[in-house]
């Protein structure tokens, strides 16, 4: 029984994935046809990473502002936030990306007196992903803020602090700490969803893999390489998030 317990505690699945990944990498890099696909597809990696990082950064800001709106007692602010969250969450990510890139961005640009066509697709993709993920992050921040005991706000206010100062110095530092793992998971999710921007012909690894597969008919090679690339990135990031979570947990007491 004890041996079984111990065997159960070992994350075999993780070893299996790591092994599979290493084997896949070895295979890809040593097999001529796969190697060719890899060398081609890897050129999209910087677009994938850039898109994810920029969109994530913007989504964090949108999420924080809208999350504050969700808990605000100001009816205008809170209703705008609620409206945004409900609308964005009710539309499929892919549709949202089309809509924002080809309609919303063009309209807003028009209002600002900029020619819509002048806005590069890369930028539109980043805006679309950021707006889409901002809604999820708003809900994460809202939950984080609401998880803090009411007495914290009361104590801060009783010392004469304004609502916004209490939020900034007392509530948010605790709330953000609580939601760091959730925010980390969203980064992983966003990395995966960044593949959707390939529909805008943005040359991320997915788009490059599609082009490669289409021109060489090496579907197996192209999509294996693509999957292995995503999986290796998300696994590393997930492990990081879990490590962070454990560290936060240990530091809690």
């Amino acid at each position, binding site marked *: 029984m004890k041996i079984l317990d111990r065997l159960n505690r070992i994350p075999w699945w993780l070893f299996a994935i790591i092994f599979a990944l290493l084997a896949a990498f070895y295979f890809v890099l040593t097999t001529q046809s796969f190697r060719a696909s890899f060398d081609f597809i890897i050129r999209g990696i910087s677009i994938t990473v850039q898109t994810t990082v920029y969109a994530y950064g913007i989504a964090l800001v949108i999420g924080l502002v809208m999350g504050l709106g969700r808990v605000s007692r100001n009816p205008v602010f809170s209703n705008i936030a609620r409206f945004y969250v409900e609308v964005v969450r009710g539309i499929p990510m892919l549709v949202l990306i089309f809509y924002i890139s080809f309609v919303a961005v063009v309209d807003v640009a028009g209002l600002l007196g900029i020619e819509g066509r002048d806005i590069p697709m890369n930028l539109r993709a980043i805006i679309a992903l950021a707006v889409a993920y901002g809604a999820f992050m708003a809900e994460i921040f809202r939950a984080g803020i609401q998880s803090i*005991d009411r*007495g*914290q706000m*009361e*104590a*801060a*206010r*009783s*010392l*004469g*602090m*304004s609502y916004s*100062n209490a939020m900034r*110095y*007392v509530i948010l*530092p*605790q709330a953000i*700490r609580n939601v760091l793992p959730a925010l980390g998971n969203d980064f992983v999710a966003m990395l995966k969803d960044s593949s959707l921007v390939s529909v805008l012909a943005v040359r991320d690894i997915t788009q490059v893999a599609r082009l490669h597969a289409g021109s060489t008919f090496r579907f197996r090679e192209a999509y294996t390489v693509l999957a292995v690339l995503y999986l290796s990135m998300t696994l590393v990031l997930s492990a990081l998030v879990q490590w962070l979570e454990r560290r936060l947990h240990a530091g*809690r*007491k």
Partner: protein
Amino acid sequence: MRAASKAIIEVKDLYKTFGKDIEALRGVNLSVERGKVVVIVGPSGSGKSTLLRCINHLEVETSGEVWVDGKQLNEKNKDINEIRAEIGMVFQLFNLFPHLTALGNIVLAQRVVRGRSKAEAEEIGMQQLKRVGIAEKAHSFPAQLSGGQQQRVAIARALAMNPKIMLFDEPTSALDPEMIKEVLDVMLDLAKEGMTMVVVTHEMGFARAAADEVIFMDEGLIVEHGPPQQIFNNPKQDRTKLFLSQILQH
């Protein structure tokens, strides 16, 4: 203005209703003079805490008036933060900020509200920690402190703002018995130094020793008030007698 009155806190005909039909306060009048210690006692649900929380507008009255140091508190009052800075509040569950050290807890509002420099705020913070007897815990986080120590840090945090009034909302109710004394001692010292205090508590010993006036509340009303000897030894109202007999039996 009510400069003519010596009262630093004046509560007039205060009503507070929660939701549709929970009447926490049903017409309370109270006046506290500068430097006096007022202890509010009564059964749970009698409205004592609500009354206390109305004095610094953590609860907004349904009707009636609250005046603090010559200023009326109302919802549109832009000065509410300034008024609150003059009113220290100590909570039953301490409400220390868990992400800051003891000293950090005391420094924060001094800097943000009072605009003091870091060095000045820390110096005052250390003085206050000494005053409550736990200077050596300045760099500990709340979770590393006992309940009694946390409550003393909370008192120091309030005092560092140089308040004119201190409100205590059942400050020892969440403490283990052996820690109650250390908190009450700090409060007794404060009373001796002439701080204006309004204290909601079940500690009758403290009331006897420190109170200038004891107020007995029940069902959202002040049933009886007077000096502690009178309330404890010679209560006039039956409800007061009943409450005291229940509480002093042991």
